[in-house]
C-alpha cells in the first residue's frame, strides 16, 4: 500500500480536549465517564465487605449454634437465616465476600504478572524466546484445569494460598496472548522506532514506551478475569478443593447446602446470587472499560 490516508476523517470529534490538572486527574475524569453504576456499586460493596468484614458482620461466621439451625430469613435476629449448623448466613456471606474478593484479586495479580512478563519478553526479544514461550502458552492452554487443580491441591493441601496459586498458575495464558499482540503492535509504532534510533536501550523502551501503553489492556483484562477467578474459586470450593472448611467461601456454602436444597431454600440461593452478581459486575465493568479505553477512539 502506497500512501497513508489524509489525517482525521470528517467524523473526527473536536481535538484539543482541554485537560486541567495533572495527567492522572484528567485520565481519571475521562475514564470514569458513562460508567455502569450498579456494577461498580456492587464491586465496591464486595470490596467493602472484604475489607471491613469484622465490622460489618453481626455474628461470628464459624460460630455454630445448635439451637438456631435452619432458621429462615426474616427480620428477626438473622436477616438471611442460618444454616444447618446454626451459623448466621449474613455473616458468612460477608466473610465469604472477603474470600472471593481476596482470591479474585490475588489470583488476577499472580496470573497477570506471569502473563505480562511472558508477553513482554516474547514480544520484545522475538526469535527463540518468543517461540519457546508461545509454545509453552499453548501447552498450558491444553492442560485440563480441573485435573491439575486436583493434583496441586492434593499435593499441597487445601488452603487460601494454594487456591490463589492454582488459579494464578493456570490462568495466565489469556494475558500472555493478548498483551503480546499489544506489545507487537507497540514495537512497530514510530515512537518506539524513533526511541531506538536515538539510542534507547531495551529496558528504557519497555519501561517508558511499552508498559504505560499496555496498562489499559491489562486493566480491562484484569477486571474481566476477576469474575472468572471468583467463579473458579467457588467451583473449587464447591468440590472441596478450595479453601478449607469451616472458612465460609460461597462455593463451600453452596456445597453444604446440597442436602438441604428443598427444605431451606436460603442456603443455596444467597451465595448463588452473590457469585452471579459479582461475576456479572466484573464482566460489565470490564466491558465498559474496554469500550472506554479503546485506543482506536484516539482519546486517552
Amino acid at each position, binding site marked *: 500500500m502506497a500512501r497513508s490516508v489524509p489525517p482525521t476523517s470528517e467524523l473526527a470529534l473536536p481535538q484539543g480536549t482541554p485537560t486541567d490538572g495533572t495527567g492522572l486527574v484528567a485520565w481519571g475524569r475521562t475514564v470514569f465517564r458513562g460508567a455502569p453504576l450498579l456494577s461498580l456499586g456492587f464491586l465496591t460493596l464486595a470490596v467493602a465487605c472484604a475489607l471491613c468484614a469484622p465490622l460489618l458482620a453481626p455474628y461470628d461466621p464459624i460460630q455454630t449454634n445448635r439451637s438456631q439451625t435452619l432458621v429462615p430469613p426474616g427480620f428477626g435476629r438473622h436477616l438471611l437465616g442460618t444454616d444447618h449448623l446454626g451459623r448466621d448466613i449474613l455473616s458468612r456471606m460477608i466473610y465469604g465476600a472477603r474470600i472471593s474478593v481476596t482470591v479474585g484479586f490475588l489470583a488476577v495479580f499472580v496470573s497477570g504478572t506471569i502473563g505480562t512478563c511472558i508477553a513482554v519478553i516474547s514480544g520484545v526479544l522475538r526469535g527463540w524466546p518468543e517461540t519457546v514461550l508461545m509454545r509453552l502458552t499453548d501447552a498450558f492452554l491444553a492442560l485440563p484445569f480441573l485435573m491439575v487443580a486436583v493434583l496441586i491441591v492434593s499435593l499441597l493441601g487445601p488452603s487460601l494460598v494454594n487456591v490463589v496459586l492454582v488459579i494464578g498458575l493456570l490462568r495466565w495464558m489469556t494475558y500472555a496472548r493478548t498483551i503480546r499482540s499489544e506489545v507487537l503492535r507497540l514495537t512497530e509504532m514510530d*515512537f518506539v522506532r524513533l526511541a531506538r534510533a536515538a539510542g534507547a536501550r531495551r529496558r528504557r523502551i519497555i519501561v517508558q514506551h511499552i508498559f504505560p501503553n499496555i496498562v489499559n489492556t491489562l486493566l480491562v483484562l484484569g477486571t474481566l478475569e476477576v469474575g472468572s477467578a471468583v467463579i473458579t474459586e467457588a467451583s473449587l470450593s464447591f468440590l472441596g478443593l478450595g479453601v478449607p472448611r469451616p472458612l465460609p467461601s460461597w462455593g463451600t456454602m453452596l456445597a453444604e447446602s446440597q442436602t438441604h436444597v428443598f427444605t431451606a431454600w436460603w442456603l443455596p440461593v444467597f451465595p448463588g446470587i452473590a457469585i452471579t452478581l459479582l461475576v456479572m459486575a466484573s464482566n460489565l465493568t470490564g466491558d465498559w472499560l474496554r469500550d472506554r479505553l479503546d485506543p482506536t477512539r484516539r482519546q486517552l
Partner: protein
Amino acid sequence: MTEALLEVRDLAKHFPVTRGLLRGKQIGAVKAVDGLSFRIQPGETFAIVGESGCGKTTLANLILSLVPPTHGDILLHGQSIARFSPAELMLYRKSVTAVFQDPYGALNPRMRIGDVITEPMAIHGYARRARQQRLQEVLRAVGLSADSARRFPHEFSGGQRQRVGIARALVLQPPLVVLDEPVSSLDVSIRSQILNLLKDLQAEFGISYLLISHDLATVEHMSDWIGVMYLGKLVEIGQAKTTCRQPRHPYTATLVAAATPPGRTPPWTLPIMGEVPHGLDIPSGCAFHPRCPYVQPICRTHTPPLTMLTAQHQVACHLYPEAMSAATWPPAPVTSA
C-alpha cells in the same frame, strides 16, 4: 572537494525468504535496497524520490542504523559506522535523527510533550537543567508555546504534532535529519507551514536533510539534489532543478509527467505502462524494462550501472551507454508503446 557529511557506498539490505520446516532453506531474497551510493554535503538537502515498494523505508532504517546492512557502508565524516564502538555509535545516533510521516504514531500518547522532546537528551545522559533549557529553545524554534511542554499529544493537531517531532529531531543539534514523508499526512494548508519551517531551520542551523518522499513538487522545492529510486536501486542522481526539468531516465520522466500540473506539458512525454511490481518479482536486467517504452534487448539481460552523464548527473540506463553521451534529448522511442 569538501568531505561529505554522510556517504553511502554500495549499501544493500536483502531480506531472505525461507521455506522448510525450520525455515532453514532460503529460496530467494527481497532486495529492498540493492547497492545504493550517494553523498550528502553539509547544509544541503538530498532527496530520495520513489513510489511504494522502492525501498525508501528500508533505506531510512539503514541510515538510522536500526537494521544492519547486508553489505555496503555508511560513512559519517568519512568514518565507517560498521567499525564504530558502542560509544561511537551513540555519537552517531546523536548526529543523525529523524522525523517520520505519521504525526499520530510518532508520539507516545502517554508522555508529555516536554518529555517526548527531551527524550534523546535523557537517553544520552544530559542533566535535567540542561534538558529544560534546551527544551525552551527548541520549542521557540519550531513555533510552539512554552507551556506546551506539559501537555499530552492528543491535545495537539496533526501539524503541531509534526512540529513536536521536528523539535525532538533537533534537540541534540544533529548535523543530519532524515525526513521520511514529513508532510504527506498533513492537511494541505498546513504543509507549507511545515515546509517553510524546515527550510528556515536549515538556513539558521546549517542542518542537512535526507528527504524521502514520493511528491516530486515538494522535493523539487526543498532539495538541492535528487536521487530517483526504483525497486531498491538508484536510477538517476542529479541536481533537483535539472533532474526535474530534464529527466534522463524514463522512470524519472514518468514521475515528472505525473507530477506536472495540468495545463503544462511535461518536458518528456511518454506513456505510463503497468505498475510497480512486487519486491519478490524484480524483473531481470534493468528492473524497469517491462514498463519502459524504450526497451532494448540488452535491458532484459544486463542491469545498467550508474554512469556519469556530467559531473553533476548520473543515470543508470542503456540509453546512455557511455558517459557524457547525451547527444539527443529526449531520446527517440525504440519500440512503439
